């Protein structure tokens, strides 16, 4: 038998008995950040390969969702800070070693860039909108002319943003559930997949919906493979990682993880998308909503379960 306890009566709020430092806003941000990264990546990609005409939703309307997601995500991050009036300290320094510093700077660039991207399409998105001031019209024309440059900037920025949502967690070796190198690519894939699902939801073009059903199917398969790799990594890991894995495969989060994330959030929508691509009629809203919901629950599971895991000594 082995037992360790605090005899001096330590019971610090949010620390004991297990960490509860990051709450729901962080999970919501990780989801929205990944979603925005995916949407902006697709918008930029289809602009660069000159397929704007075939994918109008991707390059125009979905970018509005990306901007709104980023703004809500930023508000959520700000809401979870406990020393809010000093938030500007993020922007008085660049800390190469700190993932959060990378994220803060990328968000500072990509959020306005996404709004400018939407503004560059303002005459097409809101045809009735009459820009009162002449300089706004000139500015809009200038942006439309430089759209390709914005696309080239968005590709690396959106990839960094998507990976960052995972690296933010995986950089902490004190939380064994998070501390694996695959979380960055996994969250990026999940972000791209939720973005594809969003485009399927809002697109009115049959071609676009079909194209993104195929893309989403591919991404779901990659995501499943990455999750298998993640579990294998824990399996082959040290004692602390084996214990962390128990939370997902045989513990408090097993139902959430296997039923809602893996089966309902990945496998079931993938099957529906295959059935649809075979030519049968499936309401596209079902797989798309399931992918989005699965992605959101995945972030909640990882953030909450990760904070329970720790080193024991």
């Amino acid at each position, binding site marked *: 038998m082995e037992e360790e306890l605090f005899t001096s009566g330590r019971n610090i709020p*949010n620390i004991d008995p297990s960490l509860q430092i990051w709450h729901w806003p962080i999970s919501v941000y990780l989801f929205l950040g990944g979603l925005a990264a995916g949407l902006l990546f697709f918008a930029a990609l289809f602009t660069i390969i000159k397929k704007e005409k075939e994918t109008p939703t991707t390059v125009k309307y979905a970018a509005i969702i990306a901007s709104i997601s980023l703004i809500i995500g930023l508000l959520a991050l700000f809401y979870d*800070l406990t020393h809010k009036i000093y938030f500007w300290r993020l922007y008085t320094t660049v800390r190469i070693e700190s993932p959060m510093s990378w994220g803060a700077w990328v968000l500072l660039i990509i959020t306005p860039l996404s709004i400018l991207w939407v503004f560059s399409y303002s005459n097409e998105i809101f045809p009735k909108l009459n820009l009162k001031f002449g300089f706004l019209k000139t500015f809009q024309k200038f942006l439309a002319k430089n759209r390709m440059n914005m696309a080239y900037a968005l590709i690396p920025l959106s990839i960094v943003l998507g990976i960052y949502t995972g690296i933010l967690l995986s950089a902490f070796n004190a939380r064994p559930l998070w501390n694996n190198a695959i979380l960055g690519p996994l969250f990026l894939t999940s972000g791209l997949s939720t973005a594809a699902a969003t485009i399927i939801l809002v697109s009115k073009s049959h071609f676009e919906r079909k194209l993104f059903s195929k893309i989403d199917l591919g991404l779901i398969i990659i995501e499943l493979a990455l999750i298998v790799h993640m579990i294998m990594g824990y399996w082959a890991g040290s004692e602390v990682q084996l214990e962390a894995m128990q939370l997902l495969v045989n513990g408090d989060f097993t139902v959430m993880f296997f039923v809602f994330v893996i089966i309902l959030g990945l496998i079931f929508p993938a099957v529906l998308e295959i059935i649809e691509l075979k030519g049968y009629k499936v309401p596209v809203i079902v797989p798309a909503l399931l992918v989005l919901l699965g992605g959101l629950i995945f972030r909640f599971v990882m953030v909450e379960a990760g904070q329970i895991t720790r080193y024991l*000594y």
Partner: protein
Amino acid sequence: MRYAMVIDTKKCVGCSDCVVACQTENNVPIGYCRDWITERVEGVYPNIELELRSERCNHCENAPCVRCCPTGASHIIDGGIVLVTDNECIGCGACIESCPYDARFQHPEGYVDKCTFCHHRLEKGELPACVSVCPTKCMYFGDLENPNSEVSQLLRNRKHKTLAPEAGTKPHVYYLI
């Protein structure tokens, strides 16, 4: 200069005097603590082994909390002491997540707080509050780079360990066992 603390688990009786001394000296808010006592029981009666440890921030050499801090509020000063500048801290919680010892907490005012090795006392040539009050004199404090210091001598002559060395943080609170 490399400050370190050495705690003799064979002498510690777990009285929590160090905890109270720290709370008084550093004005730690009620319900919080920068150091604490862990009791470890191993074995089945009557073959039981008991270990008492006064624990706190380990002032790690490879401090993950300093690495992940996005503003540079967490930093290392001369002597290897890890400190938090409260008006640079945004309360993001990254350092708390990164600490394998759960030694940090959010002060009710919002910034992150932790053991400072009482560096304000060190500047005056005094020992940290916890060390100075220990009734069994089980705690030692000094410079590891000086081979003649009490801590260097103890670590040379006694069997000792650090907590969770596998976390790779190179902690500098040593326990004599």
